[in-house]
């Protein structure tokens, strides 16, 4: 029983560690994205080298976040993995369907402005959040 207690504590500690690690990587990615976005304009006047470095660092943080997200997913128990994957599948569908329709609206002149990728990212974030909430409520 002591052995199983140790394993349980290990599992819980690992899940917590994965969550914290994902939080750090996400924060780092967002922060470096802000640096790569605003740095050229406000800090180094579009100098090429710092801009390339900022983009490369942001890409590196992005890949780190992907790895951390994968590790987080693998560390979840099977119900939470299912909720996460269901929400991901829903988000992928919403992103594909709405993203293409959004682009189409501009192509066929139903909207006069250029579609922004940030709008799609916001929609996908909301879809993922809604998917997670729905999943948690479903299995309450």
């Amino acid at each position, binding site marked *: 029983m002591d052995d*199983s207690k140790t394993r*349980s504590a290990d599992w819980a500690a690992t899940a917590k560690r994965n969550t914290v690690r994902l939080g750090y990587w996400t924060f780092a990615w967002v922060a470096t994205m802000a640096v790569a976005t605003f740095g050229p304009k406000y800090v180094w006047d579009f100098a090429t080298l710092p801009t390339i470095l900022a983009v490369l660092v942001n890409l590196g943080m992005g890949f780190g976040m992907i790895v951390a997200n994968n590790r987080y997913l693998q560390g979840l*128990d*099977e*119900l*939470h993995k*299912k909720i996460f994957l269901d929400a991901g599948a829903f988000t992928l569908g919403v992103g594909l369907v709405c993203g293409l329709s959004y682009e189409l609206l501009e192509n066929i002149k139903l909207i006069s402005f250029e579609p922004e990728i940030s709008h799609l990212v916001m929609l996908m974030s909301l879809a993922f959040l809604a998917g997670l909430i729905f999943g*948690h409520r*479903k*299995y309450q």
Partner: protein
Amino acid sequence: MKNRLKVLRAERNWTQAKLASELEVSRQTVNAIEKEKFDPSLPLAFKAARLFGLSIEDIFQDEAQS
């Protein structure tokens, strides 16, 4: 899929949190299995069977057969 997890847990005076800890899953997962909203994977079913010292069929019953 029907199961006797709640009965077996109650017989041992275990909380859902205690069972979840033994099975290395969250309390929500134990609750969802007990309420038959979620079917566990085969490895988790084996783990539960080992924990209670029973066979999988003693804990989980296929609804199509019952």
